[in-house]
């Protein structure tokens, strides 16, 4: 018996000890891994009012790429970008901005993207007008002054892509019956999500808000045959209405 003990001491650990230690460490690490992943997953949903810098990859890809160095934040000349803190909407340490507070000024040379070492801000973005930080949505028609028949137009006028990303659609004013209403209308194809409209909205709470694209945009199902109505109808006729 003592012989066995001495042997095991000489080797440092015996098989039983080794297996026990490995199992214990494995369990501890497994639990820890689950815990940390849980926290990360839980808080990996971006707060809808926190918008990513220009060129940001899709949220999931962004979170795999971003090293949270803050180089984009320091490259931004307008103090637009912030690094998220713990217990805030965005995942801790990642860059975001709140359009209502400070919108993106759409620098032509896009310094934040150039500064990003990890490519979580896509370096392929060279024209800021093609940025997709989010999509502006006129979220409250009831309180929007233009919908009340007034000529506020502030969001339209501050838009860097005026008459392109936001247009004013002329409509008959039913209420007075002899005026026109000019309704701010966002073209989601060209809106960059810079947030200048939201920032400038004169209401106490903005009637137009920038939201992440996945919240702002609907999506046609891939099997939907009405994407191109004319062609589809012909095709359906040709096929003898099999669909």
């Amino acid at each position, binding site marked *: 018996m003592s012989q066995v003990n001495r042997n095991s001491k000489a080797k440092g650990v015996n098989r039983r000890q080794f297996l026990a230690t490995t199992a214990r460490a494995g369990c501890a690490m497994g639990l820890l891994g689950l815990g940390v992943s849980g926290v990360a997953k839980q808080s990996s949903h971006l707060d809808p009012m926190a918008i990513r810098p220009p060129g940001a990859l899709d949220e999931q890809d962004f979170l795999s*790429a971003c090293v949270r*160095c803050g180089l984009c934040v320091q490259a931004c000349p307008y103090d637009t970008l912030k690094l998220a803190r713990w217990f805030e909407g965005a995942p801790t340490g990642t860059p975001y901005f709140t359009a209502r507070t400070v919108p993106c000024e759409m620098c032509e040379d896009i310094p934040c993207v150039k500064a990003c070492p990890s490519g979580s801000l896509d370096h392929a973005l060279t024209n800021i007008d093609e940025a997709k930080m989010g999509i502006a949505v006129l979220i409250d028609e009831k309180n929007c002054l233009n919908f009340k028949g007034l000529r506020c137009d502030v969001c339209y006028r501050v838009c860097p892509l005026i008459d392109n990303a936001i247009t004013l659609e002329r409509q008959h004013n039913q209420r007075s019956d002899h005026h026109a209403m000019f309704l701010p209308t966002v073209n989601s194809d060209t809106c960059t999500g810079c947030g200048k409209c939201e920032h400038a909205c004169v209401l106490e709470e903005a009637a137009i808000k920038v939201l992440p694209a996945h919240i702002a945009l609907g999506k046609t199902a891939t099997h939907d045959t009405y994407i191109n109505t004319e062609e589809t109808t012909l095709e359906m006729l040709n096929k003898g209405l099999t669909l």
Partner: protein
Amino acid sequence: MTNGMSNTKMKTPGAAQTRFAQAAIDELGWWRAHKFLFLRRASQLCVLLTFAIGPWMGLWVLKGNLSSSELLGTVPLSDPLVTLQVLMTGHLPETALLVGALLIALFYLLAGGRVFCSWVCPVNLVTDCASWLRRKLRLPRTAEMPRGLRYYLLALVLLLPLVTGITVWEWVNPVPILYRALLFGAGSGLWILAMIFLLDLFISERAWCGHLCPTGALFALLGKASPVKVSAVNASACDNCMDCFEVCPERQVLKPALKGDNPMIVDSDCTQCGRCIDVCAQRVFQYQNRIALKAENNQ
């Protein structure tokens, strides 16, 4: 009590309490008994200040933080562990991040891996503070965690991005959290550092840096072959006062050097903090260059 032991402080309760490492201070003077501690703190604060004078005063020498940065607007530097995590998610980063990680890895390959832990890492200030308090309050030694845990944690940190697709560890990694708090005002993450402080102080001594931190584990692996080491060149003069054991964050590395055949501390757990050099009145330890030494011996 014999003459030989009159130098050593007494650890029995009730005995007159002398200051820690009083023997070294008496023998060598305050400066030489605190030299490497002082230099180390200066180095840690210098790195931090070089980052901080950017956002604080507009003097941009280093942009970013320890996760990734840019020196003078040109040289990229990045944390190898963060870079590995990004690679494990399957994302191929820009070359800047890869080159930065390579530069940092090369530096610690030469300077000694865990030099980062003791001379650069800001968390070291927190854990050393806990350890100092532990000594001051004479808290009892507690059951030690297994030393290998950090390597399991390192494996976990690199495995999780593969499974979840995101760099999970960066939510709780205390090293960048402290830097982000100071450089970007993101103070709400500091609760993690408070936890580490309390863990080190009350639950298990040297728990974080010495047993858990995966960043330290990676740097330890990197520095295995580095030429710079601390060596017990004067091991024969050791009077077993145990001051070095008291202060060493990785005390298991000392015994083989003091009592074994090779005086060099080759264990990669050694953070090369030089505190053992400071507190030893006998001047047992010294920094040595392994390669220069070998060349000398070959002549």
